[in-house]
């Protein structure tokens, strides 16, 4: 019997670049086939070829679905052939109900009039089949981000997709939401669907998939049954070199306290009375990496934003830099006090995507680097070039537009921007989200270098191995409260998770 999907010898050229260089990939019914590789390896390009984003004729090679040659001229044609891609960025309309979103563009209709009853009953049936306890008439905007992802999958299945492509589906999910997703995916596999699973999280790839294909630089490196693989092997194939330990071992010598926050309380500005952070206090020393762990929604980002003077719901909090109290009402106050903040979500909070690298780099320190009133472009260019070299930002020049860079290089630009403010303490919120393994490792090296040079670092991350691998001390948040604090040697994954889920309340004196 023919495979559900076969892609043979696919070549895809962009001007000056061979993005896919003879890539072959196949998928059977009832299989979860994982596709892994660093950013830029060609995963998205391959899926765009499959999904009709690059129509037939713009690539070379052959696609067969159920043994039949397929030539998709559009996304719609690919969808009609049973291929559905759930992208990392959600394509739902928050004001529309779940049902309206599921059938968007394909509403059941008679002489042009939408059959509302039919719409809702069919949508409810899809949700029930997935065992999702959701009401079809709820506006999508009311759902959490995890549930929205599940609605996105329901939308794909409502189109009778037999080939489901998931691109980083768990990037925004909590662990429990991810577990729900995995149950659903396994059930779909049993029902005979084929699933292509793209993820940077190798743990879930290894536990979920049947086969793993590794792409590197537009070529297929290997396709093997998951049983025969482990994390080390996969990472080595992804990066093309043996990675013994992606967390460089460090022994910082923490010094005196550089930054302290006392009694930070933050209210949800939209829901008065609901506390996002309740009376949180912590301190960080010179040369120390303080990890802040916690599940999504625990209030980690809100805590950092509130300290930085950028959260409208801050009710209380006292801050001390090098022992003296500082008043922070606006990010400019924080910057002046020597605090830097690499915010999460670089596209939303970090970068001016349509401006040059150098405009981005100098933004937070413009008055010091360039001049208080009049700018000095040459001084900026020199500072920018130095930063690019220091952090190994790969781009043609400092005048390259930031939005054209890869995720890892964009993240380095944000980091470099804050280093140019010469901070005494640096907050990093999810500094490695959505970037490839190589870039991650470089960010880790930078964190260690900065700490060894005496900077105090607060690292917020939802990737536990990252926190455990880098931090000298870990503070755990659960529902806005600090529920645990661990020294490096006591910070085991089990202990931190227990505190993060509210099952422990131990706090060591620091």
């Amino acid at each position, binding site marked *: 019997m023919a495979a559900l999907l076969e892609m043979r010898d696919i070549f895809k050229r*962009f*001007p*000056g*670049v061979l*993005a896919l260089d003879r890539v072959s990939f196949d998928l059977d019914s009832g299989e979860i086939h994982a596709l892994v590789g*660093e*950013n*830029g*390896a060609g995963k998205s390009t391959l899926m765009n070829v499959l999904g009709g984003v690059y129509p037939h004729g713009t690539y070379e090679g052959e696609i067969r679905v159920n043994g039949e040659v397929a030539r998709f001229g559009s996304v719609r044609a690919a969808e009609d052939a049973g291929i559905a891609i759930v992208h990392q960025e959600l394509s739902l309309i928050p004001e529309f109900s779940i049902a309206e979103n599921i059938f968007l563009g394909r509403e059941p209709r008679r002489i042009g009039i939408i059959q509302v009853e039919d719409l809702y009953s069919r949508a409810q049936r899809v949700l029930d089949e997935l065992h999702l306890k959701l009401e079809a008439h709820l506006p999508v905007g009311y759902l959490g981000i995890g549930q929205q992802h599940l609605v996105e999958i329901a939308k794909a299945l409502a189109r009778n997709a037999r080939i489901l492509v998931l691109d980083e589906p768990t990037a925004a999910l909590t662990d429990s939401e991810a577990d729900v997703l995995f149950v659903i995916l396994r059930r779909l596999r049993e029902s005979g669907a084929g699933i292509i699973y793209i993820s940077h999280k190798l743990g879930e790839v290894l536990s979920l998939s049947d086969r793993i294909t590794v792409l*590197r*630089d*537009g070529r297929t490196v290997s396709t093997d049954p998951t049983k025969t693989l482990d994390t080390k092997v996969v990472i080595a194939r992804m990066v*093309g070199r043996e990675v013994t330990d992606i967390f460089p071992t460090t022994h910082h010598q923490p010094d005196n306290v550089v930054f302290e926050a006392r009694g930070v309380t933050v209210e949800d500005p939209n829901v008065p009375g609901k506390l996002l952070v309740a009376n949180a206090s912590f301190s960080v020393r010179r040369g120390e990496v303080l990890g802040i762990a916690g599940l999504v929604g625990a209030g980690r980002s809100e805590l950092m934003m509130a300290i*930085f003077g*950028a959260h409208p719901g801050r009710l209380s909090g006292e801050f001390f830099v090098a022992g003296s109290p500082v008043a922070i009402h*606006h*990010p*400019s106050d*924080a*910057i*002046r006090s020597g605090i830097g*903040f690499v*915010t999460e979500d670089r596209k*939303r*909070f*970090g*970068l*001016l*995507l*349509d*401006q040059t690298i150098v*405009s981005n780099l100098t*933004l*937070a320190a*413009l*008055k010091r680097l*360039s*001049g*208080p*009133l*009049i*700018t*000095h472009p*040459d*001084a900026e*260019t*020199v500072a920018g070039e130095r930063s690019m070299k220091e952090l190994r930002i*790969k*781009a*043609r020049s400092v005048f*390259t*537009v930031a*939005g*054209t*860079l*890869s995720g890892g*290089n964009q993240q380095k630009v944000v980091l470099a*921007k804050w280093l140019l403010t010469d901070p005494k303490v640096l907050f990093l919120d999810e500094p490695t989200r959505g970037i490839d393994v*190589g870039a991650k490792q470089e960010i880790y090296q930078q964190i260690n270098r900065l700490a060894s040079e005496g900077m105090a670092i607060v690292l917020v991350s939802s990737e536990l191995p990252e926190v455990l691998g880098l931090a000298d001390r870990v503070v755990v948040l659960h529902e806005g409260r600090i529920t645990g604090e661990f020294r490096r040697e006591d910070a085991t994954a089990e202990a931190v998770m227990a505190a993060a889920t509210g099952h422990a309340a131990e706090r060591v004196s620091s």
Partner: protein
Amino acid sequence: MTTVDRDEEAGLVAPELGEKRLGRWRVSTSALRAYTMVIALIAIWIFFQWKTVSDLYPYGLFLHPVNLANLLKQMSVTGVLAVGMLFVIVARQIDLSVGSLVGLAGGIAAMTQGWGLLPAFASAIVIGVAVGALQGTLVAYANIPSFIVTLGGLLTWRGVILYLSKGETIPVRLPVFRQLGVALLTPASGIALAAIAIVAVVWLTIRRQRARRRHGLPVASTAATTARIVVPSVLIAVFIYLMNMQGGVPLPVIVLLAVAIAGNFLTQSTTFGRYLYAIGSNPDAARLSGVNSQMHIQSAFALLGALVGIASLLHTGRVGSASPDAGTLMELDAIAACVIGGTSLMGGRGKVSGALLGALVMASLDNGMSLLSVENATQYIIKGMVLVAAVGFDMAGRRKS
């Protein structure tokens, strides 16, 4: 080097943002766009020149120095407004009240003529700044969308001038006030001005080279440096020569040039300008980088208000009277000039030179069609289509990679 390959790919994910390949040359898309607009303008000029050939003007009337001076006078009011509008649009805001405010400020200047020239001029500018600052405060600090605030302003300020003037047109009595809109610089001072401008071009170019060398940055070749001095110098000389042929440079054109130079300096060479672009590009990122967005947005509106005051003086002086419906629809001309000149209504992108080019395109269409006695109705239709077409071409060019 595999990493370089990867970056090439990464760099090509969104090539429309940065550069374009033309044969073997890479051209930045903004430069490409500017060339396209200049070519479009030249095409418009050639067309009108050809169409205005007559027995009296065998080579065409349109580019005759007298008409050119007329065209530039017409352009000066829109141009001053467009420079101000640019500040606001770059910061991802809009101001629809500009036309009504021209009416109000011009009317107040005419009413205060009795106090003397300076108080009259000052009151127009002060009222512009005050109204701009008020609207900016409502936008920045009360979080009311600028579209709404200034739509309200469009109605309110028109109402205020109708009330104050009791619906009557006030003639300009002070001779100097009237001169502001129509006077010509003497040919001798025109030549002096050209000399100063050329010296400034030379000095700035050399200073720039020195600064680059001091910072250890690559310096442009001698040929490029020479071109950078010679081309603008020739343009200045030709401009002054043409204007002197018809009696001298019109004063409002000098005002526009001064505003443009100041506006260009503000947007390109100050931290204030840089922050406006940052706010327009990504307000959250700008705020988190320590930019005081509220103060900057408020100031942008106030600055626009000041330029509206200046424009109202030019307009009132040229017309010779302040009618209560003066300035109607001028906001749309100013916005159109910015947009034709490549300013993005989504903020973060646009230059003074572009806005001036846009204003020149609009004025050329106005002037050329009047020379050809095109009906008013047709003029509106053509201008509307040109606006949409200019943006349409821009978007189409950007999508192709």
